[in-house]
């Protein structure tokens, strides 16, 4: 049924992460954790998967002496998300 949908984005957490990143310049790990309500370990796994596929970039830096992880969506990620939404729209049109 969802054969044409990107398997990387076809996950609740990863889809939420990419959708959040579509609307912001960058997001910190803590903000993504708060929004997705998944454990830190699970979120790290999902972020790594997105990073491996070059959908996002992850930057680690220090803010007020504390380490922070910042995520940004890449052009490839934007295109993948747009394609995902288009495919979803097509599917919904067929369903109607």
């Amino acid at each position: 049924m969802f054969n044409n949908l990107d398997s990387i984005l076809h996950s609740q957490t990863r889809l939420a992460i990419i959708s959040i990143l579509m609307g912001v310049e960058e997001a910190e790990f803590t903000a993504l954790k708060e929004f997705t309500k998944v454990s830190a370990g699970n979120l790290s796994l999902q972020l790594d998967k997105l990073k491996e596929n070059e959908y996002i970039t992850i930057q680690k830096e220090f803010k007020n002496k504390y380490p922070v992880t910042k995520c940004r969506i890449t052009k490839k990620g934007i295109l993948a998300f747009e394609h995902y939404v288009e495919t979803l729209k097509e599917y919904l049109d067929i369903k109607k």
Partner: protein
Amino acid sequence: MENHNLTSEEQISIIENSLKHSSKQKTGASNYYIIWGTILTVTFMVHFLNTHFKTDFTALLADISISLYAVGGLLSFLQSRKDDKNETLVPLNEKVYKYAWIGASIGIGVICVSQGSSNNFIELFCISILLIFGLINLIIGGVTNFKPLIIGGFLSMLLIILIPLSTIDYKFLITAIGVLFNCLIPGLMMKYTRANV
């Protein structure tokens, strides 16, 4: 949030909720609008009082008011540190504000340096403030869809018409009113309304 096979309704709901969450993020620009709107309005008002009434007291106030720029710089620095500390999601609009106001500062700085010795520097300075601030707020208001900035920017540019027709004291008063419309009032509305700007 668990991972399982998603239905199309769930997918749409996730996308909708996430995008709504992102778009609710405020940039924090209201604080800078309030800081600089207040400082510039007060400074121009004080200069109006000084050139209009010409008393020792207003002259003293005018001298003191110059130091408000340093206070503004310090407050902006402290505010930016506070923003850096608390901001975990950086809204897309933040870059619009940043580059627009860096451009404005450079523009005003260049006018001050190049035309500082000009005979009609005050008129040029007042026009530059109203024109640059008005133009920037009109564009930012359009990009962020925030009407008070559009209206403020437009009014600010309209006030320029009156500057060449006024005496030096009223040039300061018109500029103070312009800054009130294009910085302070939109800044307060940004802060105390639900607008996501």
